[in-house]
């Protein structure tokens, strides 16, 4: 049961253009969403997050949009740079009685930004 889905395994964009990475989730109890970036042989690094009380959060070139009714999350990178080439993971955290704060991750999307 994949609660967080990234349906595009890969994405290729030209340097300077916009990169849009998408994520869908099934659990309406998720209330906190994050994007992580991962380079080969390194651990995932936190990029940006959004709480379910918001529909947009922006940090420099990175903007995350949340559409709760559609259970859809997206990450926009503008302008894209070759150094952004990495695997991007969407993650979500459920409200639960145990409140462990664990994150549920999608399968990842490999972004390639071409010079």
């Amino acid at each position: 049961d994949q609660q967080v889905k990234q349906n595009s395994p890969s994405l290729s964009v030209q340097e300077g253009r916009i990169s849009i990475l998408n994520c869908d989730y099934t659990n309406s109890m998720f209330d906190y969403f994050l994007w992580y970036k991962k380079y080969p042989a390194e651990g995932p690094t936190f990029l940006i997050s959004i709480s379910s009380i918001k529909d947009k959060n922006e940090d420099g070139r990175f903007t995350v949009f949340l559409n709760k009714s559609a259970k859809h999350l997206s990450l926009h990178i503008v302008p894209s740079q070759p150094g952004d080439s990495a695997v991007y993971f969407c993650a979500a955290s459920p409200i639960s009685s145990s409140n462990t704060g664990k994150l549920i991750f999608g399968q990842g999307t490999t972004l390639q930004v071409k010079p």
Partner: protein
Amino acid sequence: GAGVSQSPSNKVTEKGKDVELRCDPISGHTALYWYRQSLGQGLEFLIYFQGNSAPDKSGLPSDRFSAERTGGSVSTLTIQRTQQEDSAVYLCATREGTYNSPLHFGNGTRLTVT
């Protein structure tokens, strides 16, 4: 400051042997998580520690997997009688303790079972 440190970075072992993977968290981070990433897959939750106790072990795939944490600091993930399907990158992540804050990951241990 120092980040999450994991050792070894790579481990090759023969099927049937036991392995121990170590995680040194960021100082003061009370919450600690183990994940694994199999080839081409996302990150799969294994176990969560708050201090030395593990209130959520729901992700451990079999009784061959166990983990402990001592002194609210270092954690060890042990895999007994390793199988080829255990081959993956095992990642440790910690958090200061505040819910709805990011996890900070180590670089992982790449385990290969031959």
